[in-house]
């Protein structure tokens, strides 16, 4: 009974989070510098990961949690590699925006 009554809340939250991710995508597309875009992609990754967990629980597919773990690990990897390439000066390029 209790479990049943919380499912609409999960659906509402995940749609709200997706709309938030939409707003973050604007920063990713418009963001003036490359670090801004990496940050936006990282945020979108976190939000979609939470959405995936909520979706899996709302539809009673607990095995999607493994997919969410893979998500978390790989978005971490991408951010660290991009940061390292920026830091060592390899990704600079004579290019603004």
């Amino acid at each position, binding site marked *: 009974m209790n479990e049943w009554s919380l499912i609409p809340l999960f659906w509402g939250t995940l749609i709200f989070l997706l709309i938030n991710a939409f707003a973050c995508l604007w920063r990713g597309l418009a963001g003036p510098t490359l670090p801004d875009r990496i940050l936006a992609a990282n945020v979108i990754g976190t939000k979609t990961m939470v959405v995936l967990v909520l979706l899996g629980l709302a539809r009673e597919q607990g*095995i999607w949690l*493994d997919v969410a*773990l*893979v998500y978390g*690990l*790989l978005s971490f*990897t991408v951010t*660290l590699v991009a940061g390292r390439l920026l830091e*060592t*000066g390899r990704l600079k390029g004579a290019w603004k925006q």
Partner: protein
Amino acid sequence: MNRRRAGRILTAVLIAALAVPLMYGMVQLPAPGHADAPAHTNVSAGYIERGAELGGSENLVTGVLLNFRALDTFGEVLVIFTAWLAVAAVAGTASNAERDPVPPSPVVDYVIRLLGPFIAIFALFVIVNGHVLPGGGFQGGVLLGAMLILLSLVMDAETVARAVSARSWIWLRATGVLVFAMVAVMGLPLAGYLFGLPDEPGLRQVLTVALELGIGIGGGAVLAGLFFAIAGADRS
């Protein structure tokens, strides 16, 4: 200028003309997941009914990948190995030849060294449970590769070279192809045809897990090798 504009208009008209029949076809498709859709009434019903038994794994996707379409999967394993061979031939195999001028952040260093073993354990979990849960050789292999790439961000080349020699790297990268070829040939005496898995459930399970492990380790080493080869290439 005028020709360019005409070309744009022509492109738009062509795309619209293509879109109309496609949309018309889309509307007539059955709803996704509908029970009466042709995809669900013909061949896949048979796969769903008998696939777990014939394929030898609870997860039907893994059964199809490793048993019904084993030749296709073998081709995929060969493709990524060949990709590494090509990149290594063009870019060389030296990993991180020049020392990076900027030392890595101590925080990142600590966290990667802390997380590394856990990533490896999770990758092995994904690989070995591929026949029950979503996941399998490729996905776990990508996780292993991601772990190697992360470690290469904070470790210097000498440490890596001391742990795994260049010759062992090549053998590791060939693991997927070798294990798959071995299992494929073993199908001849055990099942009577190439790429066949034996009927006995225990042996079949062992072979499936061996295949997954081979694909995982080989795939991870190949992906990390691609990264090392490109990142460490001479900039000339």
